[in-house]
C-alpha cells in the first residue's frame, strides 16, 4: 500500500494544503502538531486499520509557505479545515490530533459535532493553568526544546524531528521547515495556547479518548484532567516512557489505543 499525496486548495483557492493518505477502512484524519507533518511509523501502523488522511497545516506545505497569511485567526482556521474535509468528501470521520493539532481537532469537534465519529486527543493544547504554565517551546534553545518535547531527547524520534548530523544543506532545510511550521501554527496560539476552547468544548458530542505521555515536560499530564473534567465520558490513557509526543516515542502502544477505541 503506497502513500498517496494530493494538494487541495481551499479558502477561495488561496490556501493550498497537501494531504498525505494511506490505508483502507474507516476514515481517520490526523492533525499534526507545531513541528510539521512527517509520515511516521505511527501513521503507518494506523493505516493498517484506517484510511488515514494527514493534512499539512496551512503554511507548512512546502510550495505554499505564505498561504497562511490569508487566515487571521482560529475562526478562519476552523472554517478552512471544514472546507478541506468537504473537499475530501469526509462527512464523518475519526479526528485525531497531536498537541496543536489536538486543539484543532477538538475545536472542529465542537464546531461540527455531527461530523466527528470519534475524537482522539494526544497531549493536546487548548487550556491554561496558572499553576502549571506551558513553556513557550518556540523560543527555547534547540537542546532545551528537545528535552521538553521528548522523554528521550537523544532517541530516534527526537532525532527525526530536530535533525541529526546531516550535511549542512539538509540540516538548513530541516531547520527552515521546523521554524516555519512553528511560526505558522504559532500564529493561532501565540502567546498563550488558550484561545477559548473552554467556552466551546461542551459542544463536543463524539466519544473521546485523551492520550497523554506520562513524562510530558511541555504540557504536563495534569492538563488531561482539564479535558476529562469538561468531556464527561472521555477516557484518559497515560503512556509510560513517553513525553509530549507519545505517538512518536511509543508508536505501537498509542496506535493500539487508537485502534481499540476508534475501530468500533
Amino acid at each position, binding site marked *: 500500500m503506497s502513500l498517496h499525496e494530493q494538494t487541495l486548495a481551499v479558502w477561495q483557492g488561496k490556501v493550498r494544503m497537501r494531504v498525505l493518505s494511506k490505508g483502507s477502512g474507516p476514515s481517520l484524519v490526523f492533525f499534526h502538531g507545531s513541528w510539521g507533518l512527517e509520515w511516521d511509523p505511527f501513521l503507518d501502523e494506523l493505516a493498517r486499520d484506517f484510511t488515514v488522511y494527514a493534512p499539512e497545516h496551512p503554511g507548512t506545505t512546502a510550495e505554499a*509557505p*505564505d498561504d*497562511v*497569511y490569508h487566515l*487571521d485567526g482560529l475562526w478562519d482556521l476552523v472554517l478552512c479545515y471544514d472546507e478541506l474535509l468537504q473537499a475530501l468528501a469526509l462527512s464523518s470521520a475519526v479526528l485525531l490530533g497531536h498537541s496543536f493539532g489536538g486543539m484543532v481537532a477538538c475545536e472542529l469537534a465542537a464546531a461540527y459535532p455531527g461530523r466527528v465519529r470519534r475524537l482522539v486527543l494526544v497531549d493536546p493544547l487548548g487550556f491554561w493553568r496558572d499553576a502549571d504554565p506551558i513553556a513557550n517551546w*518556540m*523560543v*527555547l*534553545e534547540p537542546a532545551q526544546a528537545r528535552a521538553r518535547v521528548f522523554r528521550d531527547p537523544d532517541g530516534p524520534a527526537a532525532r527525526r524531528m530536530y535533525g541529526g548530523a546531516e550535511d549542512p*544543506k539538509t540540516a*538548513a532545510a530541516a*531547520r*527552515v521547515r521546523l*521554524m*516555519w*511550521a*512553528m*511560526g*505558522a501554527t*504559532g*500564529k493561532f496560539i*501565540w*502567546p*498563550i495556547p488558550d484561545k477559548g476552547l473552554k467556552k466551546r468544548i461542551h459542544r463536543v458530542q463524539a466519544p473521546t479518548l485523551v492520550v497523554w505521555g506520562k513524562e510530558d515536560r511541555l504540557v504536563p499530564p495534569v492538563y488531561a484532567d482539564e479535558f476529562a473534567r469538561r468531556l464527561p465520558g472521555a477516557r484518559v490513557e497515560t503512556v509510560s516512557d513517553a513525553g509530549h509526543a507519545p505517538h512518536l516515542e511509543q508508536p505501537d502502544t498509542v496506535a493500539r489505543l487508537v485502534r481499540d477505541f476508534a475501530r468500533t
Partner: protein
Amino acid sequence: MKISAFHLMPHRELPPDFEQRYESVWVTPPWWELADPSRVGQYYNWTLDELIHAARAGFDGVCTNEHHQNAYGFMPSPNLMGSVLARATNGTNVAVVQMGATLPTSNPPIRVAEEYAMLDCISGGRLVAGLPLGSPMDVNLCYGITPMEHRERYREAFALTLKAWQAREIFAWNGRYFQLPTVNLWPRPVQQPHPPVWVPGSGSISTFDFAVEHDVCYCFLSYSGARSAKTMMDAYWDVVGRKGRETNPYRAGFLQLVVVGDDDADAEAKYGRHVEYFYHKCLHVPAPYFAPPGNQDYRSLVATLNNPVRRPENPKELRYRDFVDKGYVIAGSAATVRERLKEEVVKGLHVGNLMVLLQIGSMPHELTLENIDRFARDVLPDLRPVWDDDGWVNHWWPERLRGGAPVPAMAVGAGRA
C-alpha cells in the same frame, strides 16, 4: 552632517556575576532581586541630565528609545523622556529624536501619532519621528504580539500614522488589525506635511525595502561597529540605487559606541570596564529570543539559515581591546576617534545622520558627562561639515534646524549644577 546623542537608560549596577546567574537581561530578569525603584529614579534623572547636557554642549539632537522588561535599556515610554527633553531644550536648535515609540505595541497605534504631534507642538517643530518595528523581545515576548503578525501590524500602523498626521478630512480606518471609525487627530504636528520619519532596523532586508519605498531615513542600530555593518549598509545603498532614489547620505543613520580619552591608555583606564559590562551583561539574551518562529518572513528565513551572515563572534569572549580593535567601540584620543568615525562610519557607510552612544553600560554619571564634553568639544565640530561640500539636503531633519551649527542655549556644563 547631523550628530545626535543616543541613550539607552541601562541598569548601571548589575551584579558582577549577572550573566552567570540569570538567563537573560531581557524579558525575564527578576526586578525584585536586581533593582530598586528609588535608585532607578536616579538613573532616569541621570539619563535626562546627560541628554540635556549633550544638547547644551552642542549636539544636533538627543535620542531616546523604547524597550520593555529589561535591564539593558528600560524606557518603556520614550515619549515621557522626550517630553522632558522637548521642554528642556526649548529655545535651542536641538532636535528631539524619538527612536522611538514602537507602533505594534501601541494600541491603537494613533496613540503614537498623537504623542509625537504633542512633542512636535511642545518643541516648536523639532521632532524627528522614529517609527521602529520593535524588537522581538519587546513586541512578541513581552507584549504578546504574534510573531507572524508583527511586520503586518507595523506596516498597517505606519500607513495609519502617516495618514492621521496629514488627512484634511476626518476618515474611517478599516484595517486588518485596527479599526477606527473617526480618525481626527488632535493635535497635529507643527512640521508639515509631517515630521521627518526615521525607521531603525538591525539589518533585515525587508526593512531596507520598506525604508526606501517610503522614502524615510533608515537607521542601522548596530552594536558591532561599522566594519561588520559594511555588508549590510552596502546592501541598503544597493536597494536605494535599484529603486531609483538618490544616494543622499542623510538617507542613512548609524549608531556607534564612542569613548574619548586623552589617549588610548587613558580611554581604556576610564571606560574599559564599562564597555565590557555593556557587551557582557547588557546584551546577555538567549539567541532564540531574537528570532521567534514566524517573525522573519519565509524568504528571509531561508536566506538566513542557508547562508548565515558570517557567524557573529560571541561578545562574551571579547575584552575591551577586542571591542576597540574590531570597531565595536571607537575609542582613544579625540584625534583617533575623529579619524575612525570619519573613515569607518561616516565615509565608509555613507552616513549623514550619526548617532553616538556615549553613556555605555555601567558608566557613571560624571564620567558620562566627561565623555559627552570631550566628544562635543574635540570631535563633533570636525565631523559636522563632512558632507557640506556635496550639496545634499537633509530632508530627514526638521526643516527649521537644517541650517548651520546649533546655538547652545547656555554655556557648556550648565547642566551639571
